[in-house]
């Protein structure tokens, strides 16, 4: 093991991780205060990272505009919107009426429209999936979706009939047994992965902060 500056970073990472982890098991005001201080530093660093992200986004699109890449006008619009919002935000603050109106009348309709288009696209994909992918998984996928929709959606006739009740039970069986079982498996996997990753960082096996 070579001696070097990275040992300092490794020791700092391991020590901070142990302090934060100890706060879950030890009810000590000192440890809790130290833990909160460290977490505030982490939040500040995350905020700084957000600024770096914004700077990176601006530089990328600026490059596209300057190099006249394909779709550069969209990048130009993004830069323009970014600068306008930034200037207005710096001038009036984020809670100014101007900023709220920009959000309510620009950003919100755009994103809502994107979600509506997404709904249409998903419907088209569901229509073609059986024709494009002729396998069992496609049939099972589109069949399950259809049953859930029928059980969730309205019934023009036969409301509160036994058939609707039957489809309702099928829907619950799918969502609460199959879907919940799969979700629990995913959550267990995520939890185990998080534990292992944390231990590796604590043991200095992984050094995401570099050498």
């Amino acid at each position, binding site marked *: 093991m070579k001696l070097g500056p990275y040992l300092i970073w490794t020791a700092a990472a391991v020590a901070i991780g142990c302090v934060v982890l100890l706060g879950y098991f030890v009810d000590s005001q000192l440890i*809790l205060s130290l833990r909160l201080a460290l977490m505030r530093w982490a939040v500040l660093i995350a905020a700084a990272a957000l600024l770096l992200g914004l700077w990176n986004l601006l530089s990328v699109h600026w490059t596209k505009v300057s190099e006249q890449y394909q779709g550069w006008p969209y990048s130009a619009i993004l830069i323009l919107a970014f600068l306008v919002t930034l200037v207005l935000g710096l001038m009036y603050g984020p*809670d100014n009426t101007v900023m709220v109106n920009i959000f309510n009348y620009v950003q919100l309709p755009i994103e809502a429209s994107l979600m509506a288009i997404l709904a249409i696209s998903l419907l088209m994909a569901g229509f073609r999936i059986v024709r494009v992918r002729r396998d069992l998984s496609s049939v099972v996928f589109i069949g399950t979706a259809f049953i859930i929709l029928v059980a969730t959606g309205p019934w023009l006739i036969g409301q509160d009939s036994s058939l609707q009740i039957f489809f309702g039970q099928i829907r619950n069986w799918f969502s609460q047994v199959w879907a919940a079982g799969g979700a629990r498996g995913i959550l267990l996997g995520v939890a185990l992965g998080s534990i292992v990753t944390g231990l590796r960082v604590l043991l200095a096996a992984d050094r995401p902060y570099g050498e």
Partner: protein
Amino acid sequence: MPEQRCPMCSKPNPENAEECIHCGARLKPLIISSDESTGRDGGQSAESSDWLSRIRSDVQASQQAEEEPESEPAAENDWLGRLRSASGEEEAQEAEEAGPPSESFPDWVDTRSPDESIDEKVPQWLARIRSKEKKKAGGEQEPAVPDDWLQSLRQKTDDEEAQPVQPEPAKDEDWLTSLRASTGEEDEPSEIPEPPVQDLGDVLPLDEIPPAEPPMASTPREEPEEDTAWLSAFEEAAGQAIEPATPIEQASRDADIGDDDSWLSDFEAATEEPPEESEEDIIETPPAFQPIDLDLTDEVPEEASEDEIFEALEALDERQPIADKPSMETPFEGLDDVEWIEPAQAQAPPAEEKPSYPEEPVSQHTPPLIFDDRSQPTEIDSQELNMAELDLPEWLGDLQKPSVEASEEKPAVDPDLAPATLPAWLEAMRPIETFRSSVEIEPDVDQSVESTGPLAGLRGVLMAEPVVAIPHQASVGSGRLDISERQYAQAELLHRMVDDEERQVSLDSKRRRRLPVFRWVISALMILAILFSIVSASPGSTMFALPERVPQDLGPLFALVDGLPTEKPVLVVFDYPPGYTGEFDAVASVILEHLMRRDISIATVSTQVTGPMLAERALARAGSDHDLVNGTDYIHLGYLSGGPTAVQLFAAAPREAILSGFLLPEELSGETAWVSSILRDVQRLSDFGMVAVITAGTDNARIWAEQANPWMGETPLVMVLSAGAEPLVRPYYEALEPQVDGILTGLPEAVAYEQMNARPADAIARWDGFNAGMLVVEAVLLAGMVYGLIQWILKPRRS
């Protein structure tokens, strides 16, 4: 004789010299012939088969004849004598002066045993031939008709050898010289002072030396094939001129020889049908054989007597030009004392007149071991057979030494013999594996000197560079790869991919742009369905029936909200993006309406940047009927940056996580939201009456459930979720120690919650549009499935 002549280079040497001072050839034989007695013992056929010994003995005999010059009358009958006589008359005169040479036949001819009876089974015509021959030779012996005429001849020869050797004509020991003079130098006979002809009938010329055991040396009956080999060769050589019915054949028929005429039968058969000679026969055949015109049908009548046949043979002998063919080895050469052969030999055409066979270039030093039928004896020209040009081995030179001493008086003739080389016929007899025409050794000056290695400085070292250093083509084809079909296919695929990368994709201008009609149709259907539901909806009523059943999760949630204390604010987390406002405006509105109905203060926070504005928008929509006042009824904490860490920090110390607020009232300008009347008593997360997280994604729900749970205390955590996020949040809700105390999912539950709350909200207002859209979606999916299945079923049948 003051000097002796080298048999190899024919140059004079001192008399006592053992080796030639010019060429180094041995002049005196290393082996003194002790086989003289055995060589003379004609009765011992086995010993007489040693032709080398016979050669030596013959040389000795000739030497003795030189010392005791007795003329051999039979020498005139010797074909060699005639050969010499053809070359020069001096030799003939000297031979006559020396007297008739002793009759000496080759041992291989002399197979006659003295003990054998001579009057048995011998053709009478042959007996007459012998008798006549002996009469011609001087009548020294009794005419005898042996059983085998060859044996009789041998006996005759032995008897003559037993007699005192007659003085040979001087200077005839060098039979090679005489041969050379008689053959190659025939044009210049005067230049070569030929010694008198001596009896060389017993001394075979080099060309006549049989290559192996003389077939006639043994009993002809035992080896009839070998005995007749020379006859076959002879017949084949003469076959072109011999008619099917020869006088000999006719005579043999008349004589009715019986068992002893096997050789004649073979000869007859060979005359009729030239046999295909085997390789051995070819090798044993003399290299040059002159075809002899034995066509005696003109001279001999069909029913001729024996005398007439004999005369015809004599005439044939006279026609045989044998002077120019000294190298021919024929059975008649050994029978040089038989007169009836001589005409046949004299009848043979000269070399220039012999029938022309298609000649192939044959190296003088590398004669082919196997001749084809066309390249048999006549293929070798007379020049090659010239004795002057024949290369004699050293051992033959040794044999010649005694003769050289006898021929000292000859003028120095520079022969054309090349030293230390083998004649062509002898080279042909050598094994082909060890055959090398010549070994060329470079002189020392021309040989390179080794410059490196342990042999540095030596000259004549075999060079390794031609084998090692000189570039040469590899014997093994290493450039060829042994690949399988799969590897070849993969290589082709990779090559194609690389080519596709380099190829510029051209705009497919020809491709007709298809309008997304189907997409437009679906969009139109959905829009029309929603518009129809909106337009057709009337206040207080819905086109689609409201759900009458309350979901099982909705009752506890409603009871929880309905039982919240009013003095504690409720923290509502708006963690959904603006795109989900269409869903969450309706879902979240019901629970906000319930809280407002109970006059519970609301504090909002968000981990999304747009969250505070969405919170403001939702509260403004929901509280329009409640006259909510910012800072009094609700307060916005704003944006909580930092992700999960910020959530944990907020859960542990809310006041330290958020230092300001969003859209704070004017009285709180310059202050934080924590100083408002709503949050004045809130120090930690557990001070809130309830935490309701409105989120569309599972991550935000999981973060709040995991990070905030340790600091939640008794404060309930409620999740208002989108329909897609429900499965991942439900495990937190259905656990034994649930981290989520209530779930409100989707518009149907919101409608049910609204119905339970009995306060109008946005859920029921959107119920008709939602259901209309759901019907369109169900219809489209059903149509897609049917369409796909039909294609799935029909397309394989088409193919």
